[in-house]
């Protein structure tokens, strides 16, 4: 016959207290999930435009912090790797900020410009595919504007004419991309237009080198080959790698990482305090019983085990509804923000928060158990 589970029975005996405890743990779990969810979503909005880049490998300067804070490097670097086995196409990408004048208010504002060779399929947006788009892009003083640019940039209708860095510019088309954290709006123009607006930028210095691979080729292997070939003034990243690189920059250089990590820490402490309160009250109420157990011949470590078991039970019982609630709230957030805040659950986070919850409850258990261990059997006579 199995041991009498004092921990389980004690928890189950006080139903109200159990429900309060579970609610407390769930609350902390939901808070932690929401903080991590918002953090993940914000970071992914900062980097999700990379998904629209039609390339598997990205060459950037080691001095590039994130896409909009890039250092240009010689175009020869992408020609050096053009012959590597598995490479289908190499494409230069130029980028810079330009002052865009709102034609209605006359106020100028920095807009982020991508310069591409119109014949290169750099982007995956459907609006930029086809010969017609290529033809429009090749027109002088013409650019495509991002529909997700902030409204401060003014009307986005095709044919609108305004000024960019004191030079006439016409909107030749639109697309949906988003500028991440760095840019309020983006433009795409041909490389010929790019050097015209951003004189004296030479075309021999590029900001990002895009490499499109043949189907079925492993990006990691090709990247390794390229790293061996290239000098130290350029780094090779896979798509996941460059997203990671930019995310790390935003996490470390902005307060996003700090704010939400702080949120996680505060939620953790709130949860720990709730569990501590519950366990402490439980121990205090059962002190004569624990002392009696010691008089009977149970060791302190057995009491230790009971309290720790209670803590683990609370962690698991609180985690499950917490996870369910978080999934619901994630869905709600994503729907309410129409997908602009893509809060999504991932396996790593599910495990991480479970671990955090167990840690939180065990820690409270360890703090509160001191009371049970000090139960003196000589005092109850």
């Amino acid at each position, binding site marked *: *016959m*199995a*041991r*009498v589970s*004092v921990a389980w*029975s*004690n928890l*189950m*005996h*006080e139903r109200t207290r159990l429900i309060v405890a579970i609610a407390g743990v769930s609350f902390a779990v939901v808070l932690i999930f929401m903080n991590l969810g918002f953090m993940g979503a914000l970071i992914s909005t900062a980097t999700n435009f990379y998904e629209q880049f039609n390339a598997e490998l990205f060459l950037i300067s080691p001095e590039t912090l994130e896409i909009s804070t890039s250092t240009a490097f010689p175009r020869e670097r992408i020609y050096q790797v053009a012959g590597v086995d598995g490479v289908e196409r190499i494409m230069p990408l130029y980028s810079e900020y330009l002052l865009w004048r709102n034609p209605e208010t006359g106020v100028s504002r920095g807009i982020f410009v991508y310069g591409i060779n119109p014949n290169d399929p750099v982007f995956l947006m459907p609006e930029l595919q086809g010969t017609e788009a290529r033809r429009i892009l090749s027109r002088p003083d013409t650019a495509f504007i991002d529909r997700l640019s902030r409204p401060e940039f003014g009307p986005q209708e095709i044919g609108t004419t305004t000024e960019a860095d004191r030079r006439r510019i016409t909107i030749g088309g639109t697309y949906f991309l988003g500028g991440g954290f760095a840019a309020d709006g983006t433009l795409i123009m041909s490389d010929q237009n790019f050097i015209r607006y951003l004189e004296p930028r030479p075309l021999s210095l590029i900001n990002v080198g895009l490499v499109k691979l043949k189907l079925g080729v492993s990006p990691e292997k090709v990247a390794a080959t390229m790293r061996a070939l290239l000098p130290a003034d350029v780094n090779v990243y896979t798509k996941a790698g460059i997203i990671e690189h930019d995310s790390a920059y935003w996490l470390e250089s902005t307060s996003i990482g700090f704010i939400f990590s702080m949120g996680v820490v505060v939620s953790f402490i709130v949860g720990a305090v709730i569990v501590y309160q519950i366990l402490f009250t439980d121990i205090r109420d*059962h002190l*004569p*019983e624990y*002392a*009696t*157990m*010691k*008089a*009977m*011949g*149970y*060791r302190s470590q057995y009491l230790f085990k009971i309290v720790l078991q209670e803590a683990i039970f609370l962690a698991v019982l609180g985690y499950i509804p917490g996870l369910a609630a978080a999934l619901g709230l994630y869905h709600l957030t994503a729907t309410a923000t129409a997908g602009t805040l893509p809060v999504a659950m991932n396996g790593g986070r599910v495990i991480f928060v479970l671990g955090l919850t167990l840690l939180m409850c065990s820690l409270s258990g360890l703090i509160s158990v001191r009371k049970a261990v000090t139960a*003196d*059997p*000589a005092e*109850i*006579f």
Partner: protein
Amino acid sequence: MFKTQPQSTLDSSRDDLAVQIQHLNYFFGVGDLSKQVLFDISLELPKGQIVILTGPSGSGKTTLLTLAGALRRLQDGSLRVLGKELVGLGDRALVNVRRNIGFIFQAHNLFESLTASQNVEMAVELTGKFASKREQSVTMLSALGLADRVDYKPKSLSGGQKQRVAIARALVNHPKLILADEPTAALDKKSGRDVVTYLHNLSRQEGCTVLMVTHDNRILDVADRIINLVDGRLESDSTPNDFVQHKTQEALTEVSADMFIM
């Protein structure tokens, strides 16, 4: 640790004694704040005796009971319980001694969340007999007249029933020494009498020694000896009249009585 003991302690240890106390002093607190509560106690409790410990409040009788129960560390004198010297023992060793002792407290101290049987089984689990624990527990509860209450939680039991569950918990492992602190204080006359009668039968049948602190005059008649403690000293060690008939312990008790009257 044993070498600090006088040689006579080891020589005079006897198999027919459940508890043997020699020149025991006990202090509460340390250093300048220490206060002596027991003074040079010497006492022998033979196996199978029921001994009642009385005395005014603060006389040290509960302290003596907790010392005999291995619930406190002690430094001075000699205290042998069931053949084991307690003086100088560490916490771990004391816990092992406790497992051979049955404790009955004034409050029942049952886990409200566990059934009567589970509360008793907690004691059986200490012996590692997991297979038979339920059976042992039910047998013991039945012996105390609780056969129809084994799966009740303490909340649904009367005060007397709860105390009997606590007694079942103390007795289920058949300890050779039972220490009881006012076991009848919370009980009505009949329940109290039942409990005492059961302890009496147990001591006669299984030869276990019972040391009981009580102020309850209604149960003094079951005692083989009555020890009176005043201000931490043994005041008297008398034989109740009815004990004269129990010839087996007679000689021994007379010797003890002469020795310990102060």
